[in-house]
C-alpha cells in the first residue's frame, strides 16, 4: 500500500501532501504566536497609570544588547536565504553544495542560540530590582544569595501528609545535618525516635511515616464512622500527624522568600506549614544600586519616600531632584515652543521619571535628555559605570517585591522570556530537523532526490516562518 501524492503534487490541488500539511501547520502556528502577540497588546494597553508597573522601553531594557538582537535578525535572515540555496542545490542534484548550505543554516541557528544565551544570562544574573513598600523602585544588582533569608536552624516541625517539607530544599547539599527525628501519633503512644544523617535517609523516613500516618488515620476514621452508626455520636478523630526533627549541630537554611509566609528572630514559617526554629542570621538584602525609579510614587510624596532613608545619601537625593527639575523644564520648553500645554498624563509620567544617581564621584552616566520628551516617558535611565561595589543594605520589612530581571519582574519581562523562549524552541526544533535531512538524507537522495527536495522545501517553509516571527519579535521587544 502506498499513500498517493507523497512526492508528486495532485493535479487539481497542485500540492503534495506534506506541503499542504505544513501550510496548515503554519496556520496554527500563526494562531499560536498570534495569541501571544495579542496578549502583548492586551497587557501593554491595559496598564493602569500609577497602579501597574510602567512598561519599560525596549531600547533601555537591553542597554548594550540591542545590536546583538539586530545581529540575530541578520543571522536568521541569512540562514533563511541559505535554506533556499540548499533547496536549489538539491533541485540541481548537487549533493555537496546542498550539504554545505545546510550546515551553514544549522550554524546560523547555533549562533542565534548562543547570542540568546548571552542575553538571558545578563538579565537573569546581573540585573535586579527591588520595589519598596511605598512603590519606589531601585534597580541594580543584589549581591550573591542575599535575597534569601539566612537562618541558622536547629529544630524543624512539619506535617506528615502531602509532599516533603519545603525547608528541605533550602538546606545546602554539602552540610546536611544529622537529625534526631521524633514522631508521636497519639499522646498515649511511645514516641518513635529515628537518627537521620543524609537527605536520602530523610526522604525514606518521611515516606515511611507518611504511609503509617495515613493508615492510622484510616483506622481512626473507620472507628469514627462505626461509632457514629452505632451510637449516633463518637469521639472525634484525633491524630497528631506532625513530626519534629532536632539537629545535632545548627544547620544553615537559605530560605526563598517566595516560599515563606513569615519569619521572626527565632523561626521561619513556610507556606506548606513546615517551620524551622533557630536563630536568624540576617534577612537584609545587600544591593549595589544603579538607578532610582519613582514613577509609581505620587509627586508630592517623592521627597518623603522611604527610598531616601534606605539609600541614606543626601547628595544622591539632591541630584535626583535637580535632574527631575531639569527634566520638567525641558518638557515645559518643548511644549511651549510648540504652543501647547503639557498634557496631564505626560506631566505626571515625567515628574515621576527615574533618574541616575551618581555616588558623588563617577559621572559617566548616559546623556538622555536630548531626546524628545515623549520618548523618555517610560524610560529607565541607563546607569553607567559604577565600578565600585559599595552596596547598601535594604531591610526586608521595607521590601514589597524583588527579583532579577527574569520573567517574574514584570509583564514586559514575562512576555520577553516566554515569546523568545518559545521562538528559541522553534529554532532548535527546526535546526534539528534540517540537520537530520543533511546528515541522514543521503539514502533518500540516492533513492528519490525529488522526495528529499520536497522535504527540504517543507522544512524551509517552516524555517522562513521562524525567521518571520523573529522579524516581528525584534522591534517589539528591543525597540518599542
Amino acid at each position: 500500500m502506498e499513500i498517493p501524492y507523497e512526492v508528486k503534487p495532485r493535479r487539481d490541488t497542485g500540492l503534495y501532501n506534506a506541503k499542504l500539511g505544513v501550510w496548515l501547520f503554519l496556520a496554527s502556528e500563526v494562531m499560536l504566536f498570534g495569541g501571544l502577540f495579542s496578549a502583548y497588546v492586551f497587557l501593554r494597553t491595559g496598564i493602569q497609570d500609577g497602579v501597574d508597573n510602567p512598561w519599560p522601553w525596549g531600547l533601555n531594557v537591553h542597554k548594550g544588547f540591542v545590536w546583538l538582537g539586530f545581529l540575530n535578525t541578520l543571522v536568521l535572515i541569512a540562514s533563511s536565504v541559505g535554506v533556499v540555496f540548499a533547496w536549489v542545490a538539491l533541485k540541481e542534484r548537487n549533493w555537496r553544495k546542498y550539504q554545505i548550505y545546510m550546515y551553514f543554516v544549522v550554524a546560523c541557528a547555533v549562533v542565534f542560540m548562543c547570542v540568546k544565551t548571552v542575553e538571558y544570562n545578563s538579565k537573569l544574573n546581573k540585573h535586579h530590582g527591588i520595589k519598596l513598600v511605598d512603590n519606589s523602585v531601585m534597580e541594580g544588582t543584589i549581591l550573591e544569595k542575599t535575597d534569601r533569608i539566612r537562618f541558622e536552624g536547629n529544630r524543624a516541625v512539619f506535617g506528615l501528609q502531602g509532599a516533603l517539607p519545603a525547608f528541605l530544599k533550602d538546606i545546602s547539599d554539602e552540610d546536611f545535618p544529622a537529625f534526631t527525628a521524633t514522631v508521636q501519633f497519639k499522646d498515649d503512644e511511645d514516641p518513635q525516635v529515628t537518627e537521620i544523617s543524609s537527605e536520602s535517609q530523610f526522604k525514606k523516613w518521611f515516606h515511611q511515616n507518611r504511609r503509617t500516618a495515613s493508615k492510622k488515620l484510616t483506622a481512626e476514621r473507620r472507628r469514627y464512622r462505626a461509632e457514629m452508626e452505632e451510637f449516633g455520636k463518637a469521639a472525634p478523630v484525633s491524630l497528631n500527624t506532625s513530626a519534629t526533627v532536632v539537629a545535632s549541630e545548627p544547620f544553615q537554611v537559605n530560605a526563598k522568600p517566595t516560599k515563606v509566609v513569615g519569619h521572626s528572630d527565632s523561626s521561619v514559617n513556610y507556606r506548606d506549614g513546615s517551620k524551622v526554629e533557630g536563630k536568624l542570621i540576617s534577612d537584609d538584602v545587600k544591593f549595589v544600586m544603579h538607578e532610582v525609579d519613582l514613577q509609581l510614587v505620587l509627586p508630592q510624596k517623592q521627597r518623603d519616600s522611604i527610598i531616601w532613608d534606605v539609600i541614606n545619601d543626601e547628595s544622591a537625593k539632591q541630584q535626583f531632584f535637580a535632574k527631575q527639575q531639569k527634566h520638567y523644564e525641558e518638557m515645559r520648553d518643548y511644549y511651549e515652543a510648540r504652543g501647547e500645554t503639557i498634557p496631564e498624563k505626560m506631566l505626571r509620567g515625567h515628574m515621576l521619571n527615574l533618574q541616575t544617581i551618581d555616588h558623588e564621584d563617577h559621572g559617566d552616566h548616559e546623556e538622555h535628555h536630548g531626546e524628545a520628551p515623549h520618548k523618555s516617558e517610560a524610560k529607565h535611565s541607563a546607569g553607567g559605570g559604577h565600578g565600585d561595589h559599595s552596596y547598601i543594605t535594604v531591610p526586608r520589612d521595607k521590601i514589597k517585591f524583588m527579583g532579577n530581571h527574569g520573567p517574574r519582574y514584570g509583564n514586559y519581562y514575562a512576555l520577553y522570556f516566554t515569546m523568545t523562549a518559545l521562538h528559541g524552541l522553534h529554532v532548535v526544533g527546526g535546526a534539528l530537523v534540517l540537520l537530520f535531512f543533511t546528515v541522514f538524507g543521503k539514502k533518500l537522495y540516492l533513492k528519490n532526490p525529488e522526495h528529499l527536495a520536497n522535504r527540504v522545501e517543507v522544512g524551509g517553509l517552516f524555517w522562513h516562518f521562524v525567521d518571520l516571527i523573529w522579524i516581528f519579535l525584534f522591534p517589539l521587544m528591543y525597540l518599542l
Partner: protein
Amino acid sequence: MSTVTEQTADSVHEGHDHHDHYEPFWKKYIFSTDHKTIGIQYGFTSLVFLAFGFFLMMVMRWSIAYPDRAVPLLADWPWFQAWLDDGGKVTGDLYNMFGAMHGTIMVFLGVVPLAFGAFGNYVTPLQIGAVDMAFPRLNMASYWFFLLGGVLMFVSFFLPSGAAKAGWTNYSPLATTTDLHYGDLFWTGQTQWLMGMVFLISSSLLGAVNFICTIINLRCQGMTWMRLPFFVWAMLVTGFLLLLAFPPLEVAAIMQLMDRMAGTSFYIPTGLNVSGMAFDAAGGGSPLLYQHLFWFLAHPEVYVLILPAIAIVSEIIPCNTRKPLWGYKTMVYAVMVLGFLAFIVWAHHMYITGMGPAISTFFQTTTVLISVPSVILITSLLISMWGGSIRFNTPMLFATAFIPMFGIGGLTGLPLAFSLPDLHLHDTYYVIGHFHYVVAPGTIFALFAGIYHWYPKMTGRMMSERLGQLHFWPSLILMNGIFAPMMFQGMAGFHRRAFDGGKAYEQISNQVFAEANGFIANICELLGIVGKNEPVLMIDLNIVTSTSAWLLAVFQVPFIINLFISGKFGKKAKGDNPWDATTLDWATPTPPPHGNFIGEPVAYRGPYEYSVPGAETDFTPQGEKDPVIVSTAEGEQEKPA
C-alpha cells in the same frame, strides 16, 4: 495506486509477503499506523475515559443529593481516605477536584476523541475512497500524544495535591494560586493539568492537519467536493476549528504555566491578596486575558463537540429513511458559515466580567447569528425524515432522539445569548442543563448511534437489537430525568458550584416545584424522594437528578455487554453493506483490510442516492457504475429522471 494494473501487481507482492511478514500483535494493534486501528484505539480509550468521567460525576451527585450522608461503597478505598472527611462525606476539595476533572475528561478525553478521533479516523478515509490518512505515522503520534495527555491527567489524581480543582475552565488567578503551598509545584494537579493540556493540544493539532490534508488531497477519482458525504464536510470544518482554535489555548496554558512555575504575572492583577496575604508577584496582569484566550478555544470546541454528532446523524438518517439528505448543499454551506461564526462568538461566556456594553452587543449579535446555520442543519435533518419509510433500528432511534434533544439544548441557549437574562442565569444549573442537553443526550446519543451503525463494518457482526432497545429507551428517559430538573433549579437560582447542593440557600431551596398530589409529586413519592402528601421542593429535584444519573449508569450495562459480546456472538452481517447504504465506506470488504479497497474506488454520483426512480434497488451506491441510469452528462445525475 494510480492505475488498476499497478494495484494487481501490488497485491501479488502482498500475497507473497504475507507468509514471511507476520505482524506481531503489538505492531498490528498497538503501534499501528492504519487509520482503522487508530480509530478503534481512540474509540476504546475515550470510552474508558467517558466511563471514568461518569464515575466522577456520580460521586458529585451523591454529595449534592445527600450532603449529610457518607458516600456508600467508596469510603474504605485508600485513595478516598485522603479526600473524604472524617465521617466519610464528600469534602469541598474533593467536589471541586471531581468537578474540574469531570469537565476536562468528558470534553477533552472523552467526547472529542470519540467523535473526531475515533469516528473521524475510521470513517473519513473510507468515505472519500482513500487508502489511509495522508500521514499515517503522524496519525499514530497523534493518538499517543492523546494517551500521554490522558495518562498525565489521570495520574494527577494520585499526587499529594490531588488533581486540578479550579474548574474545567481553570480561570486565573484562582488556578494560579491553587496548591501553591505544596513543596514541588510541578507535581501538583493544577500544573499537571496544564502539562496534560499541552499534550492533548499537540495531539489534536496533528490530527487536524492530517484530516484536512486527507480530505483535500486523497479524495478518490470522481469524488468532487459536492459528492463528499456530509460527514466528511463536517469533519473538514471540525478539523479547521481544531487547527485554529486550539493554539490560543496552548498560549493560555503556557502563560498559566509560567505564572505557576516562573512566578510571572500574566493573569495576576496588581495588589492581589490570597488568603489575606499580599501575593508575591509583580502584578499588572489581567484575569480577563485568560478568559479571552480560553473561550477563544472553548467556544469553537463546543462546535467540535457537536459537528461530528450532526455528521454521524446525517449519515444514519438518509440511510434509514431511504431518502436523500434534504438540502445537502444548504447544509454544506451552513456548516461552513457555522465554522466561521464559531470563531467570533466566544465572549458570550463573559458577559458578567465587565467587558462593557459595546463588546457585549457585538457578541450578542454574532451569537444570535450562529443559531441560523445550526437551525438549518437540524431542520434539514428533520425534513429528511418527512415522508420516508423509516427503519427504526437502534442507530436510527438514537439518531432520531438526537434531534429534539439537541433542539432543547440549542433553544435553551438563546436566553444565555443575551446579556440581560445571562446576568440572572450565569453560573446556575440552567447553564449546566443547557450545555449538557447539547452534549449528553445530543452528542453522546449521536455517538452511540454511530457505534451501532458502523459496528458491522468494523467487526462483520451486528450488535444485538434487543439489547440496543434496552439501552436506548431508559437512556432517553433518564437523560431527561437528569437535565430537565436542572433547568428549573437554574431558573430558581441554584448555583452550579455549591457542593452541598444548595442547602446554604434556604430561601431558594425551599421553593415549591410541584404541589403535593400532582403527577410529579406522586412519582417522587413513589420513588421515596418526598413523603406522602408533601410538595416537591426545588432542593428535592437534586435527588431526582442524582437518582436518574445512577440509573443511567445501570442502563449503560446492556451497551457494554452488547459491545463486547456482539463481536464474537452477534448475528453475522449480511454482506459488506448490511444497511444498504450508498457511501463508499460500505463498498469495502468487512472488516476493511490494510489499504481499504479492492481495486481503485471511483465515485460516480452524489452520496445520498436513495430511492432513485427507475433504479432496481432503493439505493444506488456511490461507487457503482449504475446500469439503469447511465448518464452522459454530469448534470443529469443530479436530477431524477
